[in-house]
């Protein structure tokens, strides 16, 4: 919580970062077009309401399935039910990308675990490399 949020009772004033929303707005507009400041505020308010709408619907869907955690598929189902079908494809692709990145991360950590050398050996090799590097450096400066 920022100082500002603490002073003004935090959650009641919770909204989205203005600069980020303004960037998203500007990305859709041609250069000569600008968005008035109070219009950005209005769009932020609309977006917050959008989050409430989708979350509430997703929560209902989740509860109907007797599940306790709102999952990605609940968000997707909520979007469909509330008339935001056109968003589904793009939103789904974000999920797919995320899963691919997660798999890549897992593969990388497995790779380290499967290395032929134990951690001590790797550390010794690293120290050997540093020592060789130091020797070269000292050799050049002398």
């Amino acid at each position: 919580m920022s100082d500002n949020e603490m002073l003004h009772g935090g959650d009641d004033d919770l909204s989205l970062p203005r600069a980020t929303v303004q960037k998203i707005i500007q990305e859709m507009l041609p250069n000569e077009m600008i968005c008035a400041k109070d219009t950005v505020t209005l769009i932020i308010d609309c977006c917050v309401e959008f989050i409430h709408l989708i979350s509430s619907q997703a929560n209902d869907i989740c509860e109907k399935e007797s599940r306790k955690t709102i999952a990605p598929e609940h968000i997707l189902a909520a979007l469909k039910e509330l008339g935001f079908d056109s968003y589904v494809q793009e939103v789904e692709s974000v999920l797919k990308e995320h899963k691919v990145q997660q798999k890549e991360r897992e593969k990388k950590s497995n790779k380290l675990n499967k290395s032929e050398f134990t951690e001590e050996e790797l550390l010794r090799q690293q120290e050997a490399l540093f020592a060789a590097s130091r020797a070269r450096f000292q050799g050049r400066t002398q």
Partner: protein
Amino acid sequence: MSTAPQLPPQLEAWLREFWQRQMDQAENMREDGLKETTLPLARIKKVMKMDPDVKMISSDAPLLLSKACEIFISEVTSRAWMLAELNKRRTLQRVDVAGAVGQSDQFDFLIDIVPPEYGYSKHKAKREVNPLFPYFRQ
């Protein structure tokens, strides 16, 4: 010029692969970083939790909702822009957003959020109250 010390071949191969992966990652990040402006996931999660009925949220749900919000903002902006153009203005005003919202049923939930502008409120009078839309403002 000094020559590099001889590395055991396995380590050499491992290092080569490691740096290749680092470079791949850097390339991907550069693409993502420049293309997309994203909303902070922690903040989205906080907004979701304002609803007392919402309890647990999976770690990737806010990610999806963040993307949905971007699309939503883009859509409202595009529609508002068209209205501003029609009125030969270079600045997006609240009335443009109100008009944009009035164009489609899917934006009915914003009835109380946008100012009652001419055109939108006329449209509003024809609508039935939809029981699907809960309100959090008391």
